[in-house]
Every structure is written in structure tokens, then in C-alpha cells.
């Protein structure tokens, strides 16, 4: 193609020395045209970031490009001397990264950091850098840019930092912007703002964007074309509309099937078994073979051919693949609707952290992490607690489990009040309530074997007479969560994220709890593995009638799994009710905005995003009246004066003056 801006041809990248080297990118080719957004989609560890860093020639010290060409506007970047490459970086190619928190230099001002890029790449403005910096900050929609210029990164919120990063990348008026998971670390409402900004900037400057993401929803909303990466290779390239309508490669198809949604509520998700293979392997045949349900013999021995052209095609031995997706059969018995007995009752729970100041360290205020919430969960039911980061949802979970002691209010487990209990009395009740944590990497002691991890609770709760009896229980529960017995003597680092999360589930379940608090159990996992874990959680609930409190920010998981949902904002619940009612007919402006901001994996669907200005205020100093009023598009005078009364219709509860 002659009109392409970026043209990558058979790019192969290696990290490490010859023995034991990993090849994160192998023979990747694609083109990006001016003004186009090309999305590189893939799960973690599939080589998409390394592809981007290869283009920038910013690979880690041990990495090098071993084969292939990268042309930008006709210039071969691979052969460019380092001095000229520096002019390209930040000049013709701008890049933004996943972690805005750590990607800015903490000791330099915003103006200095953006100005640095202007100084290097913008000769016209060399005389008046500050003016150009101001212009850039305005361009990326930073409110009050004059003041922000002299501020340091820690004074900015995550969304603001990412805007500064974008301003920095724009300083050289790049022809290509590489965005490496630009919104993964941000909340959905902020994500919507940033994606909006990128789209808007693209329209104005006609730059091309290489968008790296794992989120099908983001792809659907932003990209023109998509390339799917798996284990270092591009396995499918297609225009977005075609891709979402008819994914060709079995992996792409399974990816769609694994997405949780309302429609799939009463059946298991189609999970892709196993894990992404390690890139240190030498591959023979198709890399997806071991996880593919339509694999043939040839897939194991021969490299699959590419069907179609570079703009639109896929890498597979099979042709004429099925066009409809495989759906697991709907379960015959939809879990009967009889109300179970109440397991958890939370009334007016408050959890404050004191702020100490001054000469005598007096308490001058409180961070109101949780500011009076009510929850009821019956056995066998799932209540989802939804909200953005910093809204206090994790604190609610820890407060219920008495890992943090609530400041006031009541928490009852099976009718026993927990907040007043201490020592042995509380300890003996702990078996009844367990928690699964978000990060499978830190939720297990790296120095303990799986057996020791799973039996720790048994020993603490004095369950089982001796080691052999405990061992039996451990074996049984590992079998239940789908892990073979031989894993017992192994250590956590030997397992993948999904396997670790299974161990974490086993560890909690072995105590036979009545209540399981799941704190974002799948947010660190890839979609294909997330489906495995969600299926497992659902099966276990059906078997043991455990009550789940499911803490998450992922709306599609909520719609798939939850019976009831509570939306939290700044320490308080603003809307609560049946999952279909709340998600289908949200009443609170915040819920409406939150739901509208969630990207949907369907490029056809036109939707109106309700934009929320600004960021969530600090819980140390919440706004008066309704906490949401400063950002609420429909706020009236009364909203700033008093916290709204509860308005109830059926089981649907809303705290909003508009529905008073």
C-alpha cells in the first residue's frame, strides 16, 4: 500500500539472550493510514505493547528487533541512526502509556514536562514555549490550564494526568499517536472522557492512532480497523464493522463468546480453556491449537496460512468457519425464585478514617470511606456493589468482614451482630464469611505451598482432627475448583492468574462459608479466563447456596451474575434494586451516566454518552447535600442543601431529589 502512514512488515522482536530468549513479537505485519485508528487487540502477554515499543525503538535494554521493517511515511525506522530516531519520537510519533500515575516525572511541573517536548519538536514556538504549552493544555481539555501549568503531577487526578500525557504527545504535532492501553487504569466515566478527547483530536489533526487495548468495547467505540494478536502473532485483521459482525479466527469468535452479558445470564459462558502459551516456547504449527475446540491434526504440525490480504484476513488452517457462535445450552432449571434465608444484614454502616493534624495530632476530620449504607443478602443470591475507584466499595467489603472495624452501624451475619464481637468470639464466626481478592498475585503468600495456603483457614478454625483429615478436605476442594491434586506441593508463582484465582476460591470455600465477598475477582484477568472464573463462581453458588457480595466496576459482569445491584458514589449507595430494573431503567443521574459510559462491544450501537464533568471529590470533604450534585447534569438548588430521601418503587430504591 502506498498511502499507508505506518507500515510494519514481518516485524520480529526478541528479548533476552539466545538461550532462554522470549519472542514477544513474531512476524507481525500491518498498515495504518493517515487519519485512521487501528486497534491492536489482545490479552495480556500477547506482545501488543512490545510491538508498539518496537515502533518507537524503546524496547527494554535486553530487547532487540531481529527481523522486519518499520516504515513511517516512507522512512525506514529500523535503519535510522539514533539521533534521527529521536526526532521521530515525540515528533512524528507520539506515545501515551497505560499508567498515567507513574508515567509523569513526579518532581517536575506540568509546564516543564510538556515544554520539554515543545522545545524539542516545535521550532516555530521555540520563542514562546509557555504559550504553546498553554494552548496544548487547552486543547486536551484541562480546566484552568494557567494554574495547572505550575502544578506537579501528584496534584492532578488520574484522568488529568492522562490528558497531560496526551498534551505531551501532541507537542510535536505527530502524524501517528500510539496509545498503549490509555484508559485501562481509569474509571469508566473518565475513560469515556479520554476516548472522546482522542476521537476529537483525531478529527481536528488528522493523525493516525495505533490503539493498543484488551477491551472489545473500546475497540468497537474507537477503532476503524482492528488487528487481533495472540501469542506474538497477528491472527486476524479486519475493518471493525466486519470484525464485530463476523469474526473469522476461532480465537476471535471465542473471545466474543466469553463476554458476560444479560443475554447469557442463565447459562455458563463459553470459556476458552487453558492459558495463553508462554512466549519462550518454540512453536510448531498453530499457536492457538492447544486451546482451540475445532483444531485438526494439521494444526499441530504445520504453520497456518493467511487467508485474505493484509487489510482483511486471518491466520488459520480452517476455512469457511461457522458464522454463528457456540452458545452453551441454557440450563433447564432456572434457579427457583423462592426467597432464601437472610445471611447478611448491614444497617447504617459507617466506616471513617480519622485525619490527624497539628501539634498534638488531634483528629481534625474524617475520611468518610463508607457513610451509612444498608445491604441485605439472602442465601444463594448475589448482590453486586458497583462504583468507581475511591467510592468506598472495597471498604464496605472489609467492614463487613470486620477486617476494618466499622465506626458505627450494624453488621449481622446469620442474625449475629458482628460489630460488638471481639477476640475468640469473632474468630469462631469467621469461617462463615470469606473474601476473594482482586489481585491474584498478592493474595497468596509466595512462601507457602498450595496445600499450606488452602489449609491455613482449616487450622485457624480448628476444623479437622489431624493433618490427614485436613489433607482430604484440601484435596476435595481443589478437585472441586478444577485443580489437580499434584498442584498441592507447588508454590503460587508457578500458576497463571486464573489458576491462582481458583486457589483463592478453594481457600475460601474449604471453610464452607455462608457469605463470600468477591472484591473484583476477575478484573485482573483476561476475558477468556474471566469466563472460567465466573462460571465456577456461579456453579458453586448453585451447589452451596452461598450468598455473594460481588464488588466490581464491570457492568457486564454485574448484568451476567448479579441478582441485585447497589450503585455507590462517594461512600453512599445512590441506587439499589433488582439487576434488570437498575440496569434497564436507571433512575439516578449517576447510574445513568455510569451505564452510558460503559463501552459496548457493538460498533453498530449508537448511544448517547452522558458526560460527567470533573472527578469524584475527596471523601474527606464530601460536597454538601447530595454528594453527586457538583457533577450532576440535572442538579437543582435543593441538591446542594440536603441528602435526598429514599424513594422506593417496589424493590427499586433511589436516593435522588429528582425522584422525591
Amino acid at each position, binding site marked *: 500500500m502506498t498511502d499507508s502512514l505506518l507500515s510494519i512488515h514481518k516485524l520480529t522482536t526478541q528479548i533476552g539472550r539466545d*538461550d532462554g530468549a522470549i519472542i514477544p513479537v513474531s512476524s507481525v505485519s500491518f498498515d495504518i493510514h493517515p487519519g485512521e485508528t487501528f486497534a491492536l487487540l489482545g490479552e495480556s502477554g500477547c506482545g501488543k505493547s512490545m510491538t508498539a515499543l518496537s515502533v518507537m525503538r524503546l524496547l527494554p535494554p535486553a530487547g532487540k528487533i531481529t527481523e522486519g521493517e518499520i516504515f513511517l511515511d516512507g522512512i525506514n525506522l529500523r535503519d535510522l541512526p539514533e539521533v534521527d530516531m529521536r526526532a521521530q519520537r515525540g515528533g512524528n510519533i507520539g506515545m501515551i502509556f497505560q499508567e498515567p500515575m507513574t508515567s509523569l516525572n513526579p518532581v517536575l511541573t506540568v509546564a516543564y514536562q510538556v515544554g520539554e517536548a515543545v522545545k524539542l519538536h516545535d521550532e516555530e514556538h521555540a520563542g514562546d514555549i509557555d504559550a504553546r504549552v498553554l494552548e496544548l493544555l487547552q486543547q486536551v481539555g484541562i480546566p484552568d490550564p494557567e494554574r495547572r501549568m505550575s502544578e506537579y503531577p501528584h496534584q492532578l487526578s488520574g484522568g488529568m494526568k492522562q490528558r497531560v500525557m496526551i498534551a505531551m504527545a501532541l507537542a510535536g504535532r505527530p502524524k501517528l499517536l500510539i496509545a498503549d492501553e490509555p484508559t485501562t487504569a481509569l474509571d469508566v466515566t473518565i475513560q469515556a472522557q479520554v476516548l472522546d478527547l482522542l476521537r476529537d483530536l483525531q478529527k481536528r489533526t488528522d493523525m493516525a492512532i495505533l490503539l493498543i487495548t484488551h477491551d472489545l468495547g473500546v475497540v468497537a467505540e474507537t477503532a476503524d480497523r482492528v488487528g487481533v494478536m495472540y501469542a506474538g502473532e497477528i491472527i486476524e485483521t479486519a475493518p471493525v464493522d466486519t470484525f464485530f459482525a463476523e469474526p473469522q479466527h476461532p480465537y476471535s469468535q471465542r473471545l466474543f463468546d466469553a463476554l458476560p452479558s444479560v443475554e447469557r445470564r442463565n447459562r455458563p459462558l463459553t470459556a476458552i480453556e487453558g492459558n495463553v502459551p508462554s512466549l519462550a516456547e518454540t512453536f510448531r504449527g498453530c499457536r492457538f491449537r492447544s486451546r482451540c475446540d475445532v483444531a485438526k491434526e494439521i494444526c499441530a504440525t504445520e504453520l497456518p496460512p493467511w487467508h485474505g490480504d493484509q487489510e482483511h484476513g486471518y491466520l488459520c488452517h480452517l476455512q469457511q468457519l461457522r458464522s454463528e457462535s457456540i452458545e452453551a445450552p441454557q440450563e433447564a432449571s432456572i434457579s427457583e425464585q423462592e426467597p432464601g434465608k437472610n445471611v447478611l444484614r448491614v444497617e447504617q454502616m459507617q466506616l471513617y478514617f480519622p485525619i490527624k493534624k497539628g501539634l498534638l495530632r488531634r483528629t481534625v476530620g474524617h475520611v468518610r470511606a463508607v457513610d451509612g449504607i444498608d445491604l441485605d443478602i439472602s442465601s444463594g443470591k448475589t448482590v453486586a456493589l458497583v462504583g468507581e475507584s475511591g467510592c468506598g466499595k472495597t471498604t464496605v467489603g*472489609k467492614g463487613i*468482614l470486620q*477486617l476494618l472495624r466499622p465506626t458505627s452501624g450494624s453488621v449481622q451475619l446469620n442474625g449475629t451482630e458482628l460489630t460488638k464481637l471481639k477476640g475468640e468470639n*469473632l*474468630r*469462631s464466626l*469467621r*469461617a462463615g*464469611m*470469606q*473474601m476473594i*481478592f*482482586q*489481585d491474584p498475585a*498478592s*493474595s*497468596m*503468600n*509466595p*512462601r*507457602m505451598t498450595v496445600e499450606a495456603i488452602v489449609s*491455613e*483457614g482449616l*487450622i*485457624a*478454625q480448628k476444623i479437622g482432627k489431624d493433618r490427614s483429615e485436613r489433607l482430604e478436605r484440601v484435596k476435595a476442594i481443589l478437585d472441586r475448583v478444577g485443580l489437580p491434586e499434584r498442584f498441592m506441593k507447588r*508454590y503460587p508463582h508457578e500458576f497463571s492468574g486464573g489458576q491462582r484465582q481458583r486457589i*483463592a476460591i478453594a*481457600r475460601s470455600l474449604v*471453610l464452607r462459608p455462608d457469605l463470600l465477598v468477591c472484591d473484583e475477582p476477575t478484573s485482573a484477568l483476561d476475558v477468556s479466563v474471566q469466563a472460567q472464573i465466573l462460571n465456577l463462581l456461579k456453579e458453586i453458588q448453585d451447589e452451596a447456596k452461598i450468598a455473594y457480595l460481588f464488588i466490581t466496576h464491570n457492568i457486564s459482569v454485574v448484568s451476567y451474575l448479579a441478582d441485585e445491584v447497589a450503585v455507590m458514589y462517594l461512600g453512599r449507595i445512590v441506587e439499589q434494586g433488582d439487576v434488570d430494573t437498575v440496569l434497564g431503567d436507571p433512575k439516578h443521574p449517576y447510574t445513568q451516566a455510569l451505564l452510558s459510559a460503559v463501552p459496548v462491544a457493538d460498533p453498530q450501537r449508537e448511544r448517547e454518552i452522558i458526560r460527567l464533568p470533573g472527578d469524584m471529590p475527596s471523601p474527606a470533604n464530601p460536597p454538601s447535600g447530595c454528594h453527586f450534585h457538583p457533577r450532576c447534569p440535572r442538579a437543582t438548588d435543593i441538591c446542594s442543601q440536603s441528602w435526598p430521601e429514599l424513594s422506593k418503587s417496589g424493590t427499586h430504591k433511589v436516593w435522588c431529589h429528582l425522584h422525591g
Partner: protein
Amino acid sequence: MVWLWTDILIWLLVVLCIIGGYYSSKHPHLREPWKRVAQSSVAVASGTFLAAFIIVGLLDSLHFKAGENDPDHGEVISALDVVMRPLRKNQEKTYSAPFALHLFAKETVEMPDGSQQRIYPRLKHGGAHLESEEERAADIYQNVISALLMALITWMILVAMVGLWRSEGRTFKETISVWICVRCRVQLGVSKGFPWPTLLWTAMLLLILLFLMITLGGKYHILGTDKVGEDVLYQALKSIRTGLVIGTLTTMVMLPAAILLGVMAGYFRGWIDDVIQYLYTTLNSIPGVLLIAASVLMLQVYMDNHADEFASVIERADLRLLFLCIILGITSWTGLCRLLRGEAMKIRELDYVQASQAFGVSHMRILMRHLVPNVMHIVLITIVLDFSGLVLAEAVLSYINIGVDPTTQSWGNMINSARLEMAREPVVWWSLSAALIFMFTLVLSANLLSDRVRDAFDPKLRGIQ
């Protein structure tokens, strides 16, 4: 047998190391880093040198009272003293240079004819076996050759033994080249694993030194003699034990307290943290040297006033050594404690500690099962990094008279007594040089090894290197 306090602690440490080694071999998170250490040539070479030092130190830690028939009857001597009896017994009158045949200072000697003359008198032991003084060069040459030959033969036996032990189906020539030639290993595809050639070549070097000492040590004063005519080589070798004791026991004596207090402060926070922080800030605020000086001075006063409580000079000196370790330990544990407190504060926020709390696991058990094992790499790194600093510190402290007892053999004492002679013309350089070179070898080996240990165990550095 006579068990001095430091002997007991040293052998206890040996036992602990063996247990630790066994424990490490069972736990992959310890086994893997050690394997990485063992795969580094630098670590193996310096480790071999350290091992030689440790063997000397351990031999010197087996004390007993010499028996009836012993020439040292009644004295408390160590196994090393027995091995080195010729060196110890060949005492001259005063200074003599390395390989010298005459004293360094002129003396008035009565000549056979009755007249008196000021000459450099002949040494009593150094080169006493020579018939004429001109033979010296040839004699030394001969002895060096025989030492080299003996070293070579021993080394070849060693190589053959290792080769036979692990021939792994190679031909004889291949086997030998795999063991002694780094390049051949790569050609034969044994690029990874334990660097045997490094070990064997270092062993060769040590064997040569050993046989040189054996063949020449009894006949000459290889490193000369000091003011009272004592063999400097003997002194330098005896000083090894002192260096090792200071380097290891110091950290060990305060280790339990440092670990427990540091981890507790970080885990419990609140008033426990306040108390522990107060404790170590207070101790830390007293300048280390002054605290040591004050304590040692007080000990001296006590020992002078209660001289009758100590059975022998050697026991008194040993107690002073132990006391120095303890006081050095008190001044140096605070750094580790603070480090562990910080780490424990991070770990207590991790999900697995929260999970344990959710199980109802007791605080003590969480400390022991979750906190301590996860800070042990810091402890290990601190121990190895502190070692060389402490060996160097001993020399400085002994130099300003607040170190080990003046009767204890130590490099610091050697330097201290030798520096007064620096003003002499010509300079008495051997005592000082010997002490500095021995100390340098030990400290360099320790530094190189500890570098590798830190690289292998510190997760933060693993990404950087």
C-alpha cells in the same frame, strides 16, 4: 576441651548454617537464588577464598588445654596452634624482614674472641638450617619448586576425583576439559550450572599458597617477625578468627531482636510502633563510635577492677571480644530494624495477610508464617553486606584502642603496633602490609560474594541487572 564463649557461638552458627542450608534446599524460593549465586564464577571464586578463611577460623575455634607431654603444657591452645607449631615456636628477638637471616636491629654481641661488636645478629630460626648464607636463594628456589610440584599433584588428584565422580559418559579428555576449561565447557554444551573450572583453578591457587607455607614456613619467616620477634604470618593467620567472629557474631547476636521488633512495629503499628521507633531512634542517635568507646571503657574499668574473676588471659580477651560484638551489634541493628519495619508495613497491607485475618489466624501466627518468611531475604542481604564493613570496623576500633583486647591477635592490633614503626628508617613495612593484605583479601571476597547474593535475592534488583 576448653569452650570459650565465642567458640560456642561460632559452632552454634555452623550448626545454624547447616540447618539453614537444609531448609533452603527444601524451599524453592531460597533454593533458586542460591543456585543463581552458585552459577556465578565470581561468587564461586570468592566463596572458595572465604571457605579457606573459614577453615582456618574454625580450626582456631577448637581450644583445649595442652596435655602433660605437650611442649605447651598448661596453656590453652587451639587446633590451629598445633598445626602451626613451628611458626609459633620460632620466635626471634625482635624485628626481622621477610626471608631475612639477620635481625633488623643492630645489637652489641660478644664475639668469640671476647671483643664486643655492634652487628646485625643471625636469626635463631630463620634460615637456621643453611650452612652458608649464600645458599639462601637456591634453597628458597628449591622449596618453591617442590611446593609447586606438590600443589600440582594434589590438584590433579582433586581434578581426577571430581572427574570420576561426575564423568556423565564423556571420554577422559572431554571430562578433564569440562572440569578445567571454561571455553571447552561452552563447546561441549555445558554452559550453565556450577562453574567447576573456576572452583578448581581457585583451589589450585590456594593449594600453591598452602604448600608454600608448609615448605617455607618452618624454615624462614615468610612475612618477617614483629617487635617481640613473633612470626607475622602466624599473627596474620590467627587474626582471621577475630575478623570472622566480629563479622558474623555481631549481626547474629542482635538478629532475633531486630527481626522481631522490626516486624512487630510494622505489623501492629500504633503504640507498639511508637515504642519500638523510640527505642531505635534513641540508640541510633548516640554516635556509634562513642557508644562503643564508652562501653568498652566501662568494660575496661570493670575488668581492671575485677581482674581475679577471669581464669586466664585468653578467657578475658575472649569475653572482651564477645562484648565488642554485642556492643557493635547494638549500634548496628537499628538499620535492619527500620528496614524490616518498612517492609512489614507494606506486607501487612497485602491481600494474603488480610485473607489470613479473615480466616481468624492469630497475630503471632501471621507474624511467623507470613511476615517473617517474606522479609528473610532482606535479613540475609543485610548479614552478608554487613560482614565486610564489620571486619574493616574492627581494624579501626582496635587502632583507637576501643576494639579487641591488646592480647588478642587481630589485624587492627597488628596495624596499631606496626604504625609506630613507620617512622623508622628503613621502614618496617611487613607487619602492616601483611595485615592489610589479609584483611583486603577477606573483605574483597566477602564483598564480591555478597554482591552476588544480593543480586540473587533482592527482587528489586532482579529487574535492573
